[in-house]
């Protein structure tokens, strides 16, 4: 514990990003928990879960409120991005380069280095601020939100949309909404959870997205290129922040149950899919 106190902490996520992520967690869990029983209607656990959350029509209301929260997140995100692009004039910086979350030529090199490391032929790759799978996750979140919003609205107002589209467009929307949801939920609850929280070196929770803080050691281990870059530019110390024990404890209290709920729901979904096939 004594060494931990002396640990240097650096700010990785600003308050804006942390609050956005928290909003996203709440809305995502609300959406998945009230939506998934519908996709798995034949299962007993689906009946139980749907009734637990209030059944029909309460679950429908929760689902729509959470959808509204997701739209709020999307709106905040695009307001944030347009503020950077239009007012700060830093559009080039967030769209291209080391600080950008968009895919870069560099990511191809990173992927190759990663595969080499995974197969045991090379050292751990030296990633920069955003690792390529984090970029995939970000981009699939953007794409997924658009798909879910469009199809969700079609299912919410079917008669309005049938002015422009035939009735079976709503059926396509339902199929897309369902399988995009299964894809997103299963992805977040397994791949995202493993990549960020459940790897052996940081299980059970990576607090960075909740406290915003990463230790210098961690930063150097995980994103050595960024660490070196900031150190050489002499701006590393501007990211120094004091520890926040309360926030750290809170993030554990919130994140561990959410991780468990997500993993349990995924195991139910996967076992149902397999049982259906048999």
């Amino acid at each position, binding site marked *: 514990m004594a060494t931990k106190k002396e640990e240097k902490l650096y700010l990785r996520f600003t308050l804006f990003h942390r609050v956005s992520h928290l909003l996203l967690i709440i809305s995502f869990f609300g959406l998945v928990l009230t939506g998934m029983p519908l996709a798995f209607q034949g299962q007993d656990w689906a009946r139980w879960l749907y009734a637990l959350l209030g059944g029909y029509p309460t679950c429908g209301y929760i689902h729509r409120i959470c959808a509204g929260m997701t739209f709020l997140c999307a709106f905040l995100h695009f307001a944030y991005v347009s503020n950077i692009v239009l007012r700060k004039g830093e559009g080039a910086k967030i769209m291209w380069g080391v600080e950008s979350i968009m895919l870069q030529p560099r990511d191809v090199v990173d992927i190759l280095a990663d595969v080499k490391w995974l197969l045991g032929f090379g050292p751990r790759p030296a990633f920069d601020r955003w690792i390529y799978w984090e970029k995939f996750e970000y981009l699939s979140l953007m794409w997924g939100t658009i798909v879910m919003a469009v199809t969700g609205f079609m299912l919410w107002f079917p008669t309005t949309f049938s002015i422009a589209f035939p*009735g079976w467009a709503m059926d396509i929307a339902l*199929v897309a909404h369902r399988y995009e949801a299964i894809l997103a939920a299963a992805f977040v609850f397994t791949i995202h959870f493993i990549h960020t929280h459940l790897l*052996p070196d940081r299980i059970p929770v990576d607090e960075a997205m909740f406290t915003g803080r990463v230790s210098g050691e961690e930063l150097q*281990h995980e994103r050595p290129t960024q660490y070196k870059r900031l150190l050489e530019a002499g701006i590393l110390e501007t990211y120094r922040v004091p520890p926040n024990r309360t926030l750290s404890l809170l993030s554990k209290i919130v994140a561990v149950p959410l991780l468990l709920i997500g993993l349990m729901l995924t195991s139910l979904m996967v076992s149902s899919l397999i049982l259906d096939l048999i």
Partner: protein
Amino acid sequence: MHIKKWAGICRNVMLWVLPLFFSLSGGQVLAQEMEDCMECHGDSTKVSKVPRIERETGEVKVVSMLVDKDAFMHSAHGLSKEGFTCTDCHQDLSGVYGEHAALLQPVDCVTFCHDDPGASYLEGSHVGHMKEKEKEKKRAPPTCKECHIGQNSMRETPVKDDPFHRGQINQMCSGCHEEYKLTYCTNLHGQLASLGYCNTDIANCSDCHGGHEILKSEDPASQVGKKHIVETCNKCHKGADQKFVKHIAHPKFKRPELYKDLLKALKDRDLKKIASDPQSYLMLIFLMYMGIIGFTFTAFGTHSLLMWFRILQDERKGEDGHGH
């Protein structure tokens, strides 16, 4: 004189007073109250469980002769203003007190009361078809009592909008139309019904296809036929128009028959048929997502697993992995 007078009085009494007495009190003497039946049927020590053979399916069921009066009073007949009692339906017990024969005449719902939906049901093409298939399906067409059955007992005939009753109808229909039930559950209406929510705002089989007079969907006169479908959808979806009703109520993308049909159409080079059927588009979207899901989890699943082991191995070696 006296004798004659008394004889006259006696005759008058015989002729007028006695019949009058019986006719006034007769109502109470002859007609049975529910309580008369409940004296035994409300007491578990006086009635037993008896086997009953379901005549439509040949199933043998053990039913209790105990009557739950409260449940009856909440059923369609109990709630009715007419104040029905037991013998209104069990007419062969009218005027019978005490022990009675174990086998009663089956209750006739149609002849005296429900001739209106009864006739249209019995003469409808659906029942005709069911009669044709009777031997093949090993069951006779359902009687009134089979569909309008109560939650605990046949006699607790539910009211029209009772959610249990509405769910029961789905069950009954899927007894023969298993395929359609499965595809219905792939659709939003069926998803909710399958989760056990069968209120009137969630369409069940009969909301769309009709209750007593069920016609083939190709028949223009059917509730889901050309003539009436807009009207049928409008019952819930106000403002539904000709475009809206092109909705696929029974998506088949999970059913093997669809793929067999498609293969057949492909063999016949009938691309027009495939392109004109919106079911093909649903199937495309479904297959596309199966592909995306399969690819994503194979790629990232392998990645996560490998990464897990690599990190453990690096830790065991005591390196931070960067080779320094």
